[in-house]
């Protein structure tokens, strides 16, 4: 397990007892929590020039039997609101499939409870940021509506770095993209993850279900590049055609469909991986399961999101731990009798 005690300390914050608390509505038969990605949430629409030869190449699925496969994902969820704060929770998953084995191991970090008010958000965010990135926050501290997701992002980066450090000759799958310079994503830290991985012979692949990169003329997502092409295939790299701040992107950007009937994904691969990108894409194709998404990454996602039941339990812990007082809706009649 990765050492997270410093993070836990950084995340803990005291709030006065007796705060009024409005729990978030939870559907018990639905999952709670999001893992929204940076390039969608932080960037404006980025355009990709189309003055290049759009060649789509076929993929030959090759299941990676010689290396470990690791997948990392995290989730953040606002459990409820106080008059001047929120109570949220974070959880991260690391799924590992050892070379030559079919069983998978799971490391779960969290759920951690975070109570943030306008009074303590500065210090909690600063603490977490400095603990993970080793430098002070340069941009403004996010507002309460976004702070849990920002903290989730920082938390996930920490896990990613530690996995890159401890793994050897492995394929490390990340959910998202290799983008730096975002608010909660210092470029230096993303580089650090990539370089640590490369030093240990690891290959990183960041896979994203959606992207803010659009083709300049058609204004359509780059994922549309594979439309009309049958079978597992990929296009790219298109990094050199990104027209705004291409230096933010670390590695090459591909669009790939990993299974014959799968969805297209954006796939970021660093330059310094120990194998050719095409081989790596073939390996990803070999790992892909339902919807053309790598099985380990799917498991990491499914195990880190909170079930409705877990979210409800965490609300109960939050209320008890922080001495919160739940408030009934002022007038529930409109909800009970909407007509």
């Amino acid at each position, binding site marked *: 397990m990765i050492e997270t005690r410093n993070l*836990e300390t950084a995340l803990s914050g005291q709030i006065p007892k007796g705060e009024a608390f409005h729990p978030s509505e939870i559907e*018990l038969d639905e999952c709670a929590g999001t893992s929204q990605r940076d390039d969608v949430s932080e960037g404006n629409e980025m355009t990709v020039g189309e003055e290049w030869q759009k060649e789509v190449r076929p993929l030959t699925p090759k299941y990676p039997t010689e290396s470990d496969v690791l997948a990392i994902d995290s989730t953040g969820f606002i459990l409820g609101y106080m008059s001047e704060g929120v109570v949220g929770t974070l959880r991260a998953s690391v799924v590992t499939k050892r070379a030559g084995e079919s069983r998978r191991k*799971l490391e779960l970090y969290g759920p951690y409870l975070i109570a943030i008010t306008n009074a303590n958000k500065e210090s909690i965010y600063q603490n977490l940021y400095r603990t993970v990135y080793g430098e002070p926050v340069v941009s403004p501290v996010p507002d309460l509506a976004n702070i849990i997701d920002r903290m989730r992002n920082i938390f996930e980066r920490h896990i990613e770095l530690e996995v890159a450090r401890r793994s050897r000759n492995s394929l490390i799958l990340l959910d998202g993209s290799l983008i730096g310079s975002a608010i909660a994503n210092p470029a230096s830290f993303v580089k650090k993850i990539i370089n640590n991985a490369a030093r240990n012979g690891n290959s990183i692949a960041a896979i994203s279900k959606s992207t803010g990169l659009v083709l300049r003329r058609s204004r359509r997502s780059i994922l549309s590049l594979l439309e009309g092409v049958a079978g597992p295939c990929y296009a790219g790299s298109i990094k050199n055609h990104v027209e705004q701040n291409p230096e933010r992107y670390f590695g090459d950007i591909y669009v790939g469909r990993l299974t014959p009937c799968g969805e297209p994904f954006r796939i970021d691969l660093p330059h310094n991986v120990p194998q050719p990108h095409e081989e790596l894409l073939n390996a990803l194709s070999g790992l892909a399961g339902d919807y053309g998404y790598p099985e380990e990454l799917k498991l990491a996602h*499914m*195990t880190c999101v909170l079930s409705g*039941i*877990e979210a409800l*339990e965490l609300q*109960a812990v939050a209320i008890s731990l922080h001495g919160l007082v739940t408030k009934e809706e002022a007038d529930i009649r409109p909800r009970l009798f909407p007509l």
Partner: protein
Amino acid sequence: MITMYLLTKQADDLWVVFAPHETVRLGDTLKIDDIVAQVIDIQFADLPGVLQHILRRSLIPRSETEERIQPEVKSVIDSLSDQKVALAKIRGRVVEVDDGRGNKTKSFRTGISEFNLSRAKSRIEIMSQDELLQALGLKSTATSEFANTLSTEPKGYAIPAERLGINLITGMKGSGKSYAAKKVLLELIKRRVLTLVFDVNGEYLNLWKRSENEPNDYMNYIRILTPHLRTAQASELPFAIPLNEISYDDFAKYLNVQEGSPTYQHLVQFWRQQTGKQFDLNDLEEYVTKEENVQNEAVRIALQGRVAVAKASGLFGPSSLTSLIKELHESGGAIIFNLSRISRWERGIIVEYVLRKLSDLGHSNAIRAVSLFLEEAQLYVEPENMVNILTRMRHVGVFPTFITNDPRTLPDEVFTLLDNLIAFAFRNEDELRQLAKSGLIDTGTVNALKNLENKQCVAVGSITSNYPIFLEVKAQHGIVMGGESRKLTPG
């Protein structure tokens, strides 16, 4: 502090939600304000999304999962999916009654005509067994040797022997019913009650022993009567039926004499001649040997042969049963009729003889009351005789206890007239339905029998003030409770 919440009410069932850290057991009595309800089943609370939650948790086996989790969170996570629902049958309410001298006591009343419970405000707690037993007018005693109540805080429960009437002890094979029956028997002996036991399986034969070679304190109070036994051995005595106590028809059947044959006619004649007199096999032998009585030589030889067989069987002869009954009726004790190694016909004739004897003694007021244990009665009592035992014999002071592993073998009258039921585990629906016929116990509670473990039972009837009490029969020390059963393998 127990925190439970009322979920809903359906007919006379209450559904109560409780957290996994709370201990609620089958048989516990819940007090919801003043309403008394008994837990007859415990299930998981069926939450929406729980299947999805479990399926997600099962994606990677627990053995392959490591977690780093906040301690405060750890204690609560998974608690919601482990929430339980207790199905509690409403039994009645506890009311305060004034004894007329200003003393107020709590008493139990069946039924509820009002339903004032609140999901939000009603206080739900597990009623202490002391309080329950007191409200039921039953004694709670730590020294009870019979059983402990099956509840979160078990208490000793002593069978109030004075409340035993027509009783049924039942349960599937190996559930502990015979063990419990023996414990009831020992309790009756202590209460100076005489019990006659028809023991078809040789289950009661060692009750007088502490170990294989050592008698216990009950030795002087237990007599085993074994047919065909030549000489007395310790507590085991030979049992014989006086010839004059059976009919010529019984005798003819036993010796395979065809009805209406000349041989049969002579038996009829002999019995008629002896009407009102004491007679035995010697008298019959003398009768059949005389030529003036039986002129046909072939018939005479046939009859002499039958008499010789009867003598050799050892089944007929003088009996000390009357004096034994009278003696043990004074001191309390048990007479065990060992029916384990005799034919069905012999069982029938012995049982009929004993019942007739009891009836006579009861009618003549030679005995006040005796208890009668009938193990697997269907093996030796005809249904009409069972009804006779239930109806007529009660008036002469015979209190029957039926012990069976299949209640369907008993006539419906047993269930209609039953005063007490002690039911052990059953799995078979037919048998459970049969028990519900008694009217002493509802179907929901009967179904709870499926979940009982060995030696656990539900007792209901006069002995429990008609409140079903879940019990666990205590182990009996210092007495060989096992019968004659043998194991297939040595050692």
